[in-house]
Every structure is written in C-alpha cells, then in structure tokens.
C-alpha cells in the first residue's frame, strides 16, 4: 500500500471536517477524492501531505506511520489549487527550488530541469515568470515543480479548477497520460464527478466529512453504496411513490415493492439510461409526451411529460433518436428497465442524502 488512512478524524473546533475515515491507495494508483465542497476531501489531502495534523487516527505512507513526520520529511509532491508558483522566480527556478533545498549537485539539477521541461512541453518558457504564463502552462509548471524531487506520492488539490472548460478536457487527458508514463501514486481532489469518473482508477466519495464509498468508477456508478452516492454520481430520476398492496404508485407509474408496508412512502431512483423510449406507442407500457430534447453531444437527454404531469428524464444515442424519427412534441411509449430503492419512510425520508451504509437493493427489472 502506498498510502493508508486508519480511522482518521480532523476537528476544527467542534466541527468534524473529517470523521473516522479509513481507506488506502495502492502503489501507482490514480485516486480521486470526490465530494461536494465542504465534504472534507481537501482536508484529507492536506493530512496526507502533513499540512494538517489529524485529531485522531493514523496516516501511513509506504507502510511507515507519518503522523509525527513534518511536511518536509514526508517526501510528497503537492500541487495547490491555484498552483502557488513562486511569483518572484522564473519557471526554471520554480522547478529547481526543491532540488536546491535538497542540495542536489548543480549539474544534476540542470539535467533534471531539462528532463522535466521536455516531459511537460515547457521548453522555451524557462525564463518566464508565472504571470507571463497561461493557466495550463502554470499548472504544468506546478506539477513539474512538485515532481522534480522525485516524491513517493503526488497530491493535487482541484487540479483542473482554475482553468477554463476547453483546456480542462485537454489537461485531464494529459494527466492520465502523464500518470501512465511516470507511474507515481497520485491522489487528486475534485468536486466534479465527471472528472473523477473519467480520470481516476478508483474514487473515494466524501460528504460532510464522512467516507461514503470507495470503488472503481464503474462500481460507484453501477453499485452505489447509498442514496447519496447514487444521486451524486451521474444523473438520476428520483420519485416518492406510496405503497399499496405490494406496489408503489405515483401518477401512472407502478413499481413492484414486495414486502413493503402498506401506506408507506418510499423513495426510488433510476438512471436516465434505464428509461427505454420508443416512438411505437404499442411497444411499451407507459405513455408520455416528449417535451424537450437536449443535445449533449453523442448522447441526448429527453424530458418526458406524463399525462399526470410527472416529468422524467431519459437518455438515448443520436442514432437511435434519428432512427425512431423522434422530435419534440411527439407521443412516445417508455419503460423503466431498472430502478433502486433509495429510502423508506420508516428510516427517514426527510433529510435527503444523509442515509448511509445500506446498500439499496435492485427492486425490479422491466416494469
């Protein structure tokens, strides 16, 4: 294991920014710490770095307990959200800083700088100062500077937060390639679930200082550990039908709910891709009007309005849409292939997103 956290808690005053968190990062892994702002993910990253000390629990790096080691002794590379480049130093001197501090030989420093400039596509910018660089260049300098002293782990705080959307996509792909080439254990913080799903090997999801789930992008998407994860990762339709005779009903929709008590309201969720839409009105059980189509690229998002006024979202490919001859205003039929029980009234419907640890069972297929 490259990094291990065991029962780590961090209190700021009375507030637990991080609450009893345990997880580990494997050697060479690219790990995302994901969650809404205030979820405690940056605090976790700073505790791994040694910029914050845990109130309780232990942090290990390569099997060594590092609680009592200072930032300087942990041999980590840290990239700050706004890069924190040294304003009074040019690119070369920024990258050389850590090497000079560690008393590398001058010839070795020069060789290392040249190697990094080449690897990061920064040749020709050696003498520029941070304010003379673009956002993307600044980020690359910051990562080059962090990697220069050959750290055991690379930690990045919201690495794509400070650049505009167009460059962000480029940088994501670049980070994946870089990680593949260097194979340094890397942990990055993000609040963007798409970013985490796309870039990371595994994702740790936090909310309110609590660890909600650890898993591969596929695992957290397909098997969310709880309602929070289910709703945070990817889009989801959420409905609150009432149970009567083993069937939960809302508007026209019916969901088999065997074993659920009569008169109880439950919360169920289903992904837009689980909604199958057809222009053939006889094909599926439910009918709705296609109210609006949003073009997202290859995929389209469809908003369906049922006669009862209920609105649900579906997703389909551009080809399928064209093939079926769909357009806004058309009547369609649809079915919901898969859905999940997110919460029962008995265990508290009200405080959304605060349910934990109960794995929502898949209730049914093809209704």
């Amino acid at each position, binding site marked *: 294991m490259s990094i291990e956290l065991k029962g780590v808690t961090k209190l700021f005053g009375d507030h637990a920014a991080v609450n009893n968190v345990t997880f580990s990062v494997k050697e060479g892994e690219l790990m995302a710490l994901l969650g809404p702002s205030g979820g405690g993910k940056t605090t976790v990253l700073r505790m791994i*770095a040694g*910029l914050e000390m845990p109130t309780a629990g232990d942090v290990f790096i390569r099997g060594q307990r590092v609680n009592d080691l200072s*930032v*300087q002794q942990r041999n*980590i*590379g*840290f990239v*700050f*959200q*706004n890069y*924190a*480049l*040294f*304003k*009074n130093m*040019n690119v070369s001197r920024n990258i050389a*800083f*850590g090497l000079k*501090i*560690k008393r590398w030989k001058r010839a070795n420093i020069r060789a290392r700088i040249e190697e990094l400039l080449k690897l990061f596509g920064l040749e*020709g910018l050696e*003498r*520029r*100062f941070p304010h*003379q660089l673009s956002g993307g260049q600044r980020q690359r300098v910051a990562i080059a*500077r*962090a990697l220069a*002293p050959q750290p055991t782990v690379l930690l990045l705080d919201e690495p794509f937060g400070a650049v505009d959307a167009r460059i962000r996509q480029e940088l994501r792909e670049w980070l994946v390639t870089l990680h593949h080439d260097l194979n340094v254990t890397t942990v990055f913080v993000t609040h963007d679930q798409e970013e985490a799903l796309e870039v990371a090997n595994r994702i740790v999801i936090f909310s309110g200082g609590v660890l909600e789930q650890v898993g591969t992008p596929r695992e957290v998407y397909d098997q969310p550990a709880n309602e929070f994860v289910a709703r945070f990762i990817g889009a989801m339709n959420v409905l609150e039908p009432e149970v009567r005779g083993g069937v939960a009903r809302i508007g026209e929709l019916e969901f088999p709910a065997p074993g659920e008590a009569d008169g109880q309201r439950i919360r169920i969720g289903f992904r837009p891709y689980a909604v199958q839409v057809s222009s053939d009105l006889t094909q599926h059980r439910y009918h709705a009007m296609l109210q609006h189509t949003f073009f997202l690229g290859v995929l389209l998002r469809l908003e369906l309005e049922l006669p009862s006024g209920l609105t649900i979202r579906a997703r389909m490919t551009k080809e399928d849409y064209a093939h079926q001859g769909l357009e806004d205003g058309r009547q369609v039929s649809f079915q919901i292939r898969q859905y999940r029980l997110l919460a029962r009234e008995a265990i508290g419907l009200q405080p959304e997103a605060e349910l934990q640890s109960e794995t929502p069972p898949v209730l049914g297929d093809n209704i």
Partner: protein
Amino acid sequence: MAEPGTRIRGGAQQASQRGTEESPLAKWVLIAITLAFCFVFLLLPLLNVFAQALTKGLGHYWQSLAEPDSRAAIWLTLVVAAICVPLNMLFGLAAAWAIAKFEFRCKSLLITLIDLPFSVSPVVAGLMFVVLFGLQGFFGNRLAAHGVKIIFAVPGMVLATVFITFPFVARELIPVMQANGTEQEEAALTLGANGWQTFWHVTLPSVKWGLIYGIILCNARAMGEFGAVSVVSGHIAGLTETMPLRVQVLYEGATAASTAAAFAVASLLALLALFTLGVKCLLEWKQARAERLIVARVERS
C-alpha cells in the same frame, strides 16, 4: 451603401465617448487646479526654505551646518533613525506575518493597537514616556537608582520615535501579505524548505516592495519627528537635539544669522526627504526596467 452605415456607426461611437469622458475644458481645469495647489503648498515653501537658507551666502550656510551643536544634531538624527528603522522593520514583519498568516482571537484589536500611534497626538506620546520613565514617573525612581537615565536623554528620544513610527512597516506589509496568502509558503514547505528558507526565499522577496516603501516612510518620519521627541528631549544643545529641534531653537534665536542657520538645517532635512523619495523612484524604475527586459527577452526567444 456601406459609407453612410460606417458614418452612423462612427457618430454613435463619438457620442458614447462624450458620454463617458469629461470634456477637455474640465480636464485642463482639474490639471491646473492640481498643479497650482502643488506649487503653492508644496513647491513654493520648499523653494523658500532653500532661498532663506542661502540669504547670508553659501559660506554662512556651510558654517551653520558645521557648527558643533548643529553637527551633533545631524549625527543624533541619523543615530535615532538607524536604531528605529531596523527595529520597526523587525516589528513590522513580525506583526504583518502574525496578522496575515495566522487566525487568532482579538486580531482586529491588534490591528487597531498597531494604528494607535497614528491617532495619538505626538505630544501625548512624549508625555506618556515622561510619566513612565521621568523622575516622578512609574519606573523613574528605580531606574535613577541604577543610574539609568531615559527622559531628557537619547534612550527616551529613541523610545518616543519608535512609538511614533511603529505602524509604518506593518501597515504597508499587512495588505501585501494578506493578498499573497499562505499557499506559496506551504508550497515551499512541501518542497522540503524549513521555516527560515521559506521566509528568506519566498516570503521576503514577495513583500520586498512593500517592505522598502514602509522603510522609506518610516525613515522619513523618524528623522522628521518633532512633537514627541521634543517633550522627552529636554533640549540640551549638543546632546539631545535632533535636527527638527535644532531648527526650532535656531529659529527662536531671532537674529538674522540664526534664522538663516535654522533654514540651513531645515534645508538639509528637506534634502534628506528628497533623497529618500529619489531612492524610492530609482528602485521603482529599476524594478520596471527589469520586468521590461524580461518581457523583451521572452518575446525575442
């Protein structure tokens, strides 16, 4: 067809310019008022000081500066400034660091305290030290018993000047350090630097200009302070007179020769002020030139 269109657009643009900019008349009137004000209140009195200083000729000018009591006053002024400015620099850095980089209770109280010397009359400041260290004062007796003399001696003057110039460096540095935040320092720590290396290579260079400006202001005030220093000095010619005090004593001499001598010392004080301003301008020019050179070099490559 295209021509009328462009003309209309041009006309619209002109109208919008007139809407946002002042008329030329207002511009010149404002410039004239500012220049006239600067001339009457700044330049004219300054020129007058030099003119008065030279009424008795250059020979008398040098003589009045070379006179033992005046020489002692010049020396003492430099000594007081040489003690106060470094103390202020250390204090200013420490205070600005504490306020900008750490969170603690009563922070706003501390900031208000730092500003205190600005709001207290210098004469009151001088009296505070007399009350504390004078013979009838709080520590006075005990200090006198050990043969330590603070009031009516150089230590008292240094104390009063330190009090008066206390806020200058801190006031300049706090906003600069707050704007810089702590990320650069943390970055240095993650790269293995210790506290001293971080301060020397990262913090100090990033606040360099604020620090220099604070020191210049502090120095100007330390040399020019009259009120507080006057109260604690006792006006012992040749021993506890700084230049501003010397100017007053000479001026009150009321002979033509002593008045000219007063202006001679005053002109030297003014020259010191102009010199510090000159140093500031030179530093700013050098900084701007260094940046231009870098940009030019980058563009060439």
